[in-house]
């Protein structure tokens, strides 16, 4: 069982590594920016964030990963974020999550729904490969219906091409 998980993990990493191109930094880490790893209690923001909540995930782990235009491969930054998410989900093993797949506005509505599903699935598959039970991880695609930020700049588009982990 242990071996199986390990080899699955390796396969995912290889797949992602050979098909992804590094993206320019700057907006790659979103809500998780500046936080390396788990919460230490030293307090980004305020100390009132309850452990094991969406706020905890967003502030101290990183609740989202970003994608390149018309791509569904995880970036190295994205995989690092998901590594932390997997550890966090193992710590709070009672939680279930839904992965939202989102796209920027530079695509047609229906194609973006398909693309959002793929992005959400890429995130889910990575978490599952790290040992999170697939029954704990649901997916939903919002296509381009729920941008995170408003704007027509490449920076805004980059922030909207994302997979967001939502605690149910």
């Amino acid at each position: 069982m242990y071996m199986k998980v390990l080899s699955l993990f390796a396969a995912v990493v290889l797949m992602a590594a050979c098909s992804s191109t590094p993206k320019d930094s700057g907006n790659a880490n979103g809500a998780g920016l500046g936080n390396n790893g788990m919460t230490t209690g030293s307090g980004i923001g305020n100390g009132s964030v309850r452990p094991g909540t969406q706020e905890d995930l967003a502030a101290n782990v990183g609740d989202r990963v970003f994608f390149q235009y018309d791509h569904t491969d995880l970036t190295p930054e994205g995989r690092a974020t998901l590594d932390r998410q997997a550890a966090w989900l193992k710590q709070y093993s009672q939680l279930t999550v839904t992965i939202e797949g989102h796209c920027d506005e530079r695509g047609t509505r229906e194609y973006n729904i398909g693309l959002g599903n793929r992005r959400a699935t890429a995130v889910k598959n990575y978490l599952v490969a790290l040992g999170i039970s697939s029954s704990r991880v649901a997916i939903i695609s919002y296509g381009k219906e729920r941008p995170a930020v408003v704007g027509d700049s490449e920076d805004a588009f980059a922030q909207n091409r994302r997979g967001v982990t939502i605690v149910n």
Partner: protein
Amino acid sequence: MTMMAAFLPRVWTGFGAALVLTILTITAPARADLNLDLTRGTLQPIPIAITSFLGAGAAANTGQRLAGVVSADLERSGYFRPVDPSAFTQDPAALQGTPRFADWKLLQAQALVTGAVSVQADGQLRVEFRLWDVVAEQQMTGLAFMSTPDNWRRVAHKVADAIFKRVTGVNGYFDSRIVYIAETGPAIKRQKRLAIMDQDGERHQFLTNDNTLVLTPRFSPNSQEIAYLSYYGGKPRVYLFNIETGRQQVLGDFPGMTYAPRFSPDGGKVIMSLSDGSNSNIYTLDLQTRHQTRLTDGPSIDTSASYSPDGRQIAFESDRGGTQQVYVMNADGSGLKRITFGNGRYGGPVWSPTGEYIAFTKLAGGHFAIGVVHPDGTGERTLVESFHAEGPTWAPNGRVLMFFREGSSSDGRGKSASLYAVNLFGGNERRVTTPVDASDPAWSPLLP
């Protein structure tokens, strides 16, 4: 509907060169490439005088309003230019006989519409009209319609359709409806609901509340039902909305997200995409038997399926070749053929009601375009280029398309979305007025 007076089957010769040009551009799409600039720049609309319909008693006010709706329909088509009624020198009562053609020639009207409206003893509204060729001094057509008084707008649209067809030789499209997505609220939390209206924006009605995200509505062939995507309960699925009863039901029992629905031309099936997470494939659901049939299979996003009007073929988009492109296949999934090869990505194909074109949304160089192409891949042309234009739908006669534009949010107004209509040659673009922001239009067939 009964024929009131036989029209003279003589060729209408009075319109001169302008009419000839119009007929050519309307009826000869094969020459559209040659005529593109001509149709954009130099189309001469036919001057038409539309007089108030003579009304008595309970129908006294209706006559003016009927003429107003007919006039607005014909003007909006781009093929007619209504003459200013304040210059008219013959009143509706005098026009119940043969018109004084010299008066109308003086106003340079080439066509004249006269009519009368009354409420019958049984409460029925009776509307009659005649279309006159002013230059040839003869009647072209005359029809009478009976309906209930509250249906007067639809009768006016039917009059406009009859005039359009008699003059252009092409079916009209005015007695039809639009279902679309009404948008309110900020971009990051946009509220979307189903709305329906007449093709001219009147008789507007919201069909759903704003609690549930809904997208991409499409009419059934009898215009009684709408297939659409709803995020009800956080489980996005294709739903069916019955316009008369307001009843909504999920379509089919699929294991994952379904989206991008369209009816088959006979109304018996809905075609849609089913996502397995990574890939989306095209399925049909038989509305009678509830039998599901898978039509495509592969590691790609196959979506936006649209039947040809004879039901024998299906256009759809797929990224199986690396980027979004439009493909055509037989209705059973065989005989696959890619039909778009230009620069950029092609999506959202919609087969025209005449069968001769497939409309699409194109992305190239960071911009959107609406275009058309023949089903064999030839004759591609762009109708509209824009920062963001998307989602074409065809008027019932296949000569006009409606689509939506989104504004740039960097212009300081925040996100905006509006409906527009444009003709098959990219000309006569008009904004369609809606009470709130609007997207995802779908045009009904001509109403019965």
